[in-house]
């Protein structure tokens, strides 16, 4: 079974600064997908970024980028030029490519606070 660990329950960053959220995972699979989801107070989970394990290039989406270290099983999220709207819970998630294992496995989340 796969596990996802987020060791930072809370993080804070000054507006316009850069912050990195950590995520590690454990798996015996060689191909899989990793995700970062954002959950604002509205509770609705929003996909921020995704990474295919077979791709060596780190994914980027505007101000969001990841540092994917496959050998270390590490998948951190970097938010550049932090904005007030970035304040939320952030969850790292893993998904297997195996048929019959179509679930997302989530970490426990990191609460990000943006300081004006």
């Amino acid at each position, binding site marked *: 079974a796969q596990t996802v660990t987020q060791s930072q329950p809370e993080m804070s960053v000054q507006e316009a600064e850069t912050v990195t959220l950590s995520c590690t995972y454990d798996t015996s699979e060689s191909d899989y997908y990793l995700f970062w989801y954002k959950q604002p107070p*509205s509770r609705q989970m929003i*996909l921020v970024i995704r990474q295919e394990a077979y791709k060596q290039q780190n994914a980027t989406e505007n101000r969001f980028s990841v540092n994917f270290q496959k050998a270390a099983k590490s998948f951190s999220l970097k938010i550049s030029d932090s904005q007030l709207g970035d304040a939320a819970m952030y969850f790292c998630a893993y998904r297997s490519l195996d048929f019959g294992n179509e679930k997302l496995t989530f970490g426990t989340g990191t609460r990000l606070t943006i300081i004006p």
Partner: protein
Amino acid sequence: GAGVSQSPSNKVTEKGKDVELRCDPISGHTALYWYRQSLGQGLEFLIYFQGNSAPDKSGLPSDRFSAERTGGSVSTLTIQRTQQEDSAVYLCASSLALQVIYEQYFGPGTRLTVT
């Protein structure tokens, strides 16, 4: 277009009562997922549907939990004889199909409180 909707938004019930939670997926989405988010925890997978079929029910915490999906659309998660440990936010998600390349779109969840 309309996203995933869930009802009720909040539900308070007494221990021992049955509750039904409803999920309306995005139109045309064949895959539907239920997750549970307990306080201070990540999301815990409960069950998924492909069409009206649920191939894997092993994520359901106990036999008090059941789920069904009709017409390949609306899904209902039923909890019988609720216990205080069932208090959580129940999130539903849908995607075009089961394949991982299709994004899961989440609803706003139902917050269940068992008193």
